[in-house]
Every structure is written in structure tokens, then in C-alpha cells.
């Protein structure tokens, strides 16, 4: 299968700061998850693909063509930026209609705008000025802006940021359906479950480099070996510590002095939580809060790169 997007030794630096380094990628149709902690280089990569930045070195070809200063490519590409930008004095309808017209639609522009706004649930609020929208609505409007011309390649930079749970589910479903129509999506996020809900095909970026690429289950298997820390705030923390210390999946138990929590370290999160649920149900344990301080991509990356 011919790749839609191909990079060879792609580098981008800003002065002395490296954005991405030696990226060799070939992206074929489907949904590709771009995962990495904040500052990993995901946005730089998407800015390169969307023609906002010129490669400092190496090549980048989209549909076989260079991207920078090549506007005709954007008949086939849609981009949803991560930042909250908008024309404050415009209504949602005017904004999407304008973009439909910019994409070359004349008689069909209104129909296209209507479809895009309906897909993100903004038809009822279409005549309101964008500045009166909530953050989540503006995020959905940006998604509408990126799909109004039904591009073959959709670039989504943190598309679910600030969106309420109900619309998250709807949009994830929409993205999956969009892919089934033969389109390609590159979705960037620093939240693993968000990407997992859309695809199993991921690229892990860290410090501007591709850290791992492929099936999410492989990454999961690496992560599963990661000794997670789980902190439980409970008045019965000592009793909980006694119950867990006997379990072979527990690596460490720590009760910090002058703190109402007990911290467990385990490599088997599922077993830990299953046992915890049993204990809570059987003994009516009073648990105020459960947190996993290192259950984020940065912690996982730190672990994977052996810090």
C-alpha cells in the first residue's frame, strides 16, 4: 500500500531547540495515534504536515508532494489545531460557510457547512458569535472546520481537549466512521485511553524522536510491566496495608508519616484493583480517594526509557 505521508530523516529545530529529529515514517490509510507527553514533538510534527513549518532538514511528502507553500494539497487535507483560536466577531455558521467557500464550494457551500456543523452538534448554536461559545463548543467548531470539505487526510491535534464526556464518545465514534469511509486520520494526544478508544495503531514520540511504532498492545505490554504507584486515602489505611502486603503482586507498601494515605507499588494494576474492589465490597471499607500519581504518559515514558 502506498503511504499517504512519507518522511525521511525529517528534522525541525527552532534556533537551538530541537522540535523533531530524524523522523522516518510512512503512514498508510487508517487511524494513526500520535502519542507523547507534552513537549514531545507531536505538535511540531503536525505543524510540519500541515505546512505551517518548513523542514530544517530531510524530506516530507504528502500524497507524493512537498507540503510547505503547496495550498492545493489542502483540498485533500483537513487540520484541527490544538489551540483555542477563533474569529471572535463571527458566528459559527459564518465561519464554517467561509471555510467551505475557501475550499472551492460555491452552490454546495451551505450544504457542506450544514453537514459539518450537524456532525459536531452545533447547528442549533450556529448563529451565535463564536466568542459566546464554551471552550468545548469552540473545540467542536474547529473539528467542523477541519471536516467541512471531507478531506482524505484529517490531522487532529488534541481533538478531544475540553470536550464533555458525551461528545467525546460521539466524536470518537464519528472519527471511526470517517476512517471506515476510506479516509486517514492522524490523531495526536497525550492521553493514552483517548487514543486507545480510536485505534490500535500508534506512534510514540518522545523528545522529538519516534520512540516506538506499531500496535498498541505491544506498548501496553511494556506499560504493564511498569510498577504503578497507587495512592489510597482512607481512615483504614493501616488495615488495607496489612491486607495487601501479603499479596505477591505488591512490590512495596508505604504509609507516609502525617498523611492520610497509603501508597502501593504494583506491576499488576488489574489484580490490584480487583482485590481492592473485593475488599471494599466485603468489609465496607471507607475509601475517600484513589489516585495513581504516575498513571500518565510522562511517567510511562520515563519508565520505558529507563530513567
Amino acid at each position, binding site marked *: 500500500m502506498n503511504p499517504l505521508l512519507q518522511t525521511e530523516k525529517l528534522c525541525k529545530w527552532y534556533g537551538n531547540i530541537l522540535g523533531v529529529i530524524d523522523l522516518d515514517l510512512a503512514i498508510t490509510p487508517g487511524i494513526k495515534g500520535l502519542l507523547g507527553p507534552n513537549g514531545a514533538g507531536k*505538535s511540531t510534527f503536525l505543524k510540519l504536515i500541515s505546512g*505551517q513549518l518548513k523542514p530544517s532538514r530531510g524530506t516530507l511528502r504528502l500524497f507524493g508532494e512537498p507540503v510547505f507553500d503547496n495550498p492545493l494539497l489542502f483540498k485533500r487535507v483537513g487540520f484541527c489545531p490544538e489551540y483555542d*483560536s477563533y474569529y471572535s466577531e463571527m458566528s459559527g455558521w459564518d465561519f464554517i460557510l467561509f*471555510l467551505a467557500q475557501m475550499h472551492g464550494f460555491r452552490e454546495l457551500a451551505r450544504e457542506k457547512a450544514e453537514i459539518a456543523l450537524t456532525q459536531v452538534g452545533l447547528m442549533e448554536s450556529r448563529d451565535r458569535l463564536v466568542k459566546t461559545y464554551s471552550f468545548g463548543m469552540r473545540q467542536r467548531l474547529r473539528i467542523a472546520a477541519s471536516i467541512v470539505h471531507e478531506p482524505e487526510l484529517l490531522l487532529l491535534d488534541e481533538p478531544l481537549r475540553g470536550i464533555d464526556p458525551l461528545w467525546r464518545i460521539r466524536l470518537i465514534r464519528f472519527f471511526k466512521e470517517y476512517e471506515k469511509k476510506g479516509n486517514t486520520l492522524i490523531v495526536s494526544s497525550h492521553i493514552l485511553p483517548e487514543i486507545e478508544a480510536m485505534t490500535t495503531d500508534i506512534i510514540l514520540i518522545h523528545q522529538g524522536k519516534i520512540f516506538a511504532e506499531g500496535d498498541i498492545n505491544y506498548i501496553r505490554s511494556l506499560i504493564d510491566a511498569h510498577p504503578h504507584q497507587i495512592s489510597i486515602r482512607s481512615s483504614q489505611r493501616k488495615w488495607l496495608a496489612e491486607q495487601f502486603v501479603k499479596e505477591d503482586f505488591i512490590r512495596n507498601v508505604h504509609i507516609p508519616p502525617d498523611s492520610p494515605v497509603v501508597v502501593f507499588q504494583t506491576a499488576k494494576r488489574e489484580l490490584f484493583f480487583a482485590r481492592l474492589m473485593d475488599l471494599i465490597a466485603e468489609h465496607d471499607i471507607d475509601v475517600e480517594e484513589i489516585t495513581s500519581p504516575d498513571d500518565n504518559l510522562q511517567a510511562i515514558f520515563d519508565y520505558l526509557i529507563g530513567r
Partner: protein
Amino acid sequence: MKWKHDLQIVFSMFFKLAAKAKRTRYLFLFSLLPVLTLVILKIYEFSRLHSQTVSSNYFFIYGSLTIQFQFFVPIFALFFGTSIVTDEVENRTLIFLTTTPVSKATILLGKFLSVSVITAAITLFGFLITYFIVFFSQLGTPQMWVNILRYLFATILALLAYLSVFTLMGILMRKPVIFGLIFIFGYERVVQFFPGSTQKLTIFHYVKSLLPSFPESNQMLAFNIPPSSFALSIATLLGISIIALILSVWLFRKKEFIAATGDGS
């Protein structure tokens, strides 16, 4: 003609936005200050409350003309011209325009045209009212109409030249307004008083050369050297506009625009 359609879309969208913008409203109100002053003068003249009052004619020659060509035209052009690109970069909306199949040249020219029309409208509105109030009694004389056409023509060409230069500054610089103010109140003013023909290196010299004759006693608009010919002044102002616009388009296509508060991720 795809580019024509695209240009029309960009123009109409940004014309509407510019017309609604706070900047436009404030500058429009500001542009009416000479009208207000003149109305007060006229009331004085008619009521003869003050025997030594400044005549409205005197006010036009020494006040309105100076304000119009030394202040309103370059300042309005500065605020509107630099905003063409910097507003998009600072508000991070440029991405919506540059990820469409419309060329950057069309985007820039479409915005430039919309801003030019708005700037011309707010710059000329107050000036024309002032002119007609002052010369109301001479409406029947052909010279009055010739003069107004020359003022209109000079204003439009001056705006084009300043807007183009400030559009270029907006693309080149991070703080274009500061450099623009230095250009207007520093370079353009100071060079007027230099000996020799250095004042021919300013836009203002060619704008003044297009104006109908006025008393030498108006120091702000006076020439230290003879004015350039009408044709040379037109050609120079148009040349400056075209060169600045070509450079702007070229730079706009080649430059990477990352918002000042951008994310390096």
C-alpha cells in the same frame, strides 16, 4: 477564474470583520474630531460670539490638511496595514486560512483590499465633510471640484503606499507598530527638514506633490525643494505600493509564522 472567486471570498469576509472591529469604530470616531472642531468654529463664526475667531477656511488649510496627510493617513494605514498579518498570527487564526487550497498571495491581497477600502472610507469620510462645510459657498465653482478630486486622489495613493509598506512591516517584524511610529514621526518628518533633495526619499514628499497649492506659511506641508511632478509622484507612490506588496506576498509565502505565545511541543 478560481483566484477571482477566492479573492472575492477573502475580501468580503475580512471586509465584514474589519467593519465590525473595535479598531475601526475607534479610529472612525477619532477621524471625526476635525469635523467636530470645525462645527464649533462655524457656530462661533455665525454667532460672532468671538471677534478674533479663527476662520473655518484658515482651519482647513492649517488644520485639516495637516491632520489628514501627516496624521490620519499614515496612522490609520499603520494600524490597519500592520494588522493584516499580525492579527492572524497573534490570534492564531492564520492556520484556518493557510490550510485551505487558496494561495497565500490571494489571502494577503484579499485582506489588503478589504483593509484598504475600510481605511479609505474612514479617512475620507470626515475629510469630505470638513471640505464641504468649509467650501459650501463655492460649490458652484469648478476649481473646488478639481481640488476635491486631487485631495481624494492624493489620499488614496498615499493610503496605498503607506498600507503596503506597513503590511510588509507587519510580516517582517514582531513589533511593527513601534517601528511604524518611528517611521512616521521620525524618518518621514525629520527628513523633510534635511538640506538637499533627501526629502525625495520619503513617501510624504510625493503625497504633498499631489496636493493642490496652499500657502507656504503652512510649515508642516511646505517644501524645502520644489515639488515633484504630478506624473512622477503618481508613479513613485504606485511603485512603492507595488514593490512593497510583491515583497509582502513573497515573504508571506516563505516565512513560518509561529504565534508569540506558541507551543514548542
